[in-house]
């Protein structure tokens, strides 16, 4: 076709040839590759769905499953299949109205209690009413309610106490201490690098901070336990500061998130156009006044985003708190006492041979879900802020 150079010889035959040459052809390889690449991209969605689904499913089990616990009580007389009152022994844990109890295979609901006499509703949840002989042990159903989960402050799976605030409080303690260290320090570093440091100083300082960010967190855990804790204990006192404490973990975590704050804030500061600085200098402002009153406010949203990302990182940080903050949930506001964070608890209980379908296993997912939404929320807000920030300067 390319040989038919002379225009006059071109006719319908050439059109047909051109059509043959240009007609869309099935490109199977291209299509397959494109499909594969799309699947690769879409897989990330699948991962998110997987996370939310698994966390949600097991959390739902956590809040709905009935655990039968021995009350060390027994019925004091024989019970026939129809009676609704029964006396129980005084031993063991007290029952409450609305408790579900289990005798042999039959489930009953406690309607009222007078001393040791129970009035019950028989044959609950499709179980069959039957006769029970004297001394049949009573088991009681424990179920973790959302109200207990979000409304109480004791987390002790052994005795069925699941108040998330014990763990959230410790997470907040370590995170706030970390942020108290990292935010002022990180912002100062960012201001110094962006506004004061020479090219050469920046070229050496930035990689050092990056190294700080690249150190595995377990190493920071080691540092907290073997350096920060003894330091705190020698300064503040052995009897005030426990071997495991949230202060030490929080301080070291602050160092861990320092590079996040400083590098993101520095990006935000560097993005502020020089014309703003020149305008401030032109009005007779000193370098400090320019930095603090012009550049930092102009970069405020970027800095805020950095703070949020750092907070999210602190909340999700695990190894430092697992090593240094203490093993055992403890609702305390004393930073020198041991307290287990959400992440620390997950690591500790999953460290052993955890059996599936146990309350411990399910609780791990409930904590995980909470953690997921807390960090996701912070990240999403931070992204929104960054997005808006970009629009301002582009």
């Amino acid at each position, binding site marked *: 076709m*390319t040989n038919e*150079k002379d*225009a006059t010889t*071109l*006719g*319908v035959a*050439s*059109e047909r040839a*051109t*059509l043959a*040459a*240009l*007609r*869309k*052809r099935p*490109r199977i390889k291209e299509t397959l590759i494109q499909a594969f690449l799309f699947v690769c991209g879409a897989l990330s969605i699948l991962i998110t769905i997987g996370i939310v689904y698994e966390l949600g499913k097991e959390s739902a089990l956590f809040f709905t499953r009935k655990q039968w616990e021995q009350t060390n009580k027994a019925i004091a007389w024989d019970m026939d299949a129809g009676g609704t009152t029964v006396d129980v022994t005084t031993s063991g844990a007290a029952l409450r109205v609305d408790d579900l109890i289990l005798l042999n295979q039959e489930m009953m609901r406690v309607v009222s209690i007078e001393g040791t006499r129970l009035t019950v509703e028989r044959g609950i949840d499709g179980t069959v009413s039957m006769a029970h002989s004297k001394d049949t042990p009573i088991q009681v159903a424990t179920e973790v309610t959302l109200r207990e989960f979000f409304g109480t402050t004791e987390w002790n799976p052994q005795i069925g106490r699941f108040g998330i605030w014990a763990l959230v409080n410790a997470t907040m303690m370590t995170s706030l201490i970390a942020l108290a260290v990292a935010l002022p320090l990180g912002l100062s570093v960012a201001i110094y690098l962006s506004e004061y440091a020479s090219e050469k100083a920046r070229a050496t300082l930035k990689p050092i901070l990056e190294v700080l960010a690249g150190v595995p967190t377990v190493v920071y855990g080691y540092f907290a336990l073997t350096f920060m804790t003894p330091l705190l204990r020698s300064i503040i006192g052995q009897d005030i500061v426990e071997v495991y404490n949230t202060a030490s973990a929080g301080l070291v975590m602050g160092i861990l998130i320092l590079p996040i704050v400083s590098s993101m804030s520095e990006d935000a500061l560097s993005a502020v156009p020089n014309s703003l600085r020149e305008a401030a200098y032109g009005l007779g402002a000193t370098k400090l006044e320019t930095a603090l009153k012009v550049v930092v406010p102009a970069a405020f949203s970027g800095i805020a985003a950095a703070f949020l990302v750092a907070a999210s990182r602190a909340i999700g940080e695990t190894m430092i708190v697992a090593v240094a903050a203490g093993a055992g949930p403890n609702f305390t506001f004393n930073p020198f006492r041991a307290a287990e964070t959400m992440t620390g608890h997950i690591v500790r209980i999953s460290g052993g041979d955890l059996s599936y379908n146990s309350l411990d296993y399910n609780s791990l997912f409930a904590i995980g879900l909470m953690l997921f939404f807390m960090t996701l929320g912070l990240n999403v807000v931070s992204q929104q802020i960054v997005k808006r920030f970009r629009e301002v300067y582009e």
Partner: protein
Amino acid sequence: MDNGRIHTTKLDSWQDTNVTYAIEAQGLNVYYDNFRALKNVDLKIERHKVTAIIGPSGCGKSTVLRAFNRMNELFRSARTEGRVLFNGLDIYHDQIDPVEVRRHIGMVFQKPNPFPKSIYENVAWGARIHGYRGNMDDLVYQALTQAALWDEVKDKLGQSGLSLSGGQQQRLCIARTIATQPEIILMDEPASALDPIATLRIEELMRELTNNYTIIVVTHNMQQAGRVSDNTAFFSLDETDRAGVLIEYGPTLRIFSNPASKMTEDYITGRFG
């Protein structure tokens, strides 16, 4: 001739028996998102001629050039209306493969963009992906010779294309396009990044290439358009909606000596743009 907007799958309705022209735009409109970049362009490009497209910046010169080989749709969300007939067939018809279109209508860009590969590989790659089965060495030799580059690079075919000077790089890009044996070569300000001597060589090359190819060149350089082209199309911005429109099209000699439009005259004499 219909208004060129109707697409059907029947061959007869989207062919045009008049195939005197290498390529022909009929009622061509190009939109980027909601912005109309090109408005109602009708343009017939003659075979084995150099056609220059001139006009002030932003008037859609590059857009019309890129509409001729469906490059517009690649990088920006461009939407094209109207027809572009190549050998009488609308290249925007949905049964036409844009990849095949680009193979037959090659393109040379504003900035020389050789691949960071050897000179030989630069020329051979295009032919190879089209399944060229002949003697590759011969093809490379012919392409480089046609691009007037062979003598300068014959001893260093293994060197990187980036090691050449700007003018040589651009001729390498032309050789690379020739090697895929297109019918039409589109050139988007091919000499704007080059020095005067290199520019001259490219211009000479364009004239030589008309023996075998149809050349469409976008240029902002009046003298260049005057020197190399047979026909000239002058584009400008529509006053009302800032869309690019074709103002005047005809033999270069006539356009430069006796423009029909006042706008063309102003532009050519440097009073505008």
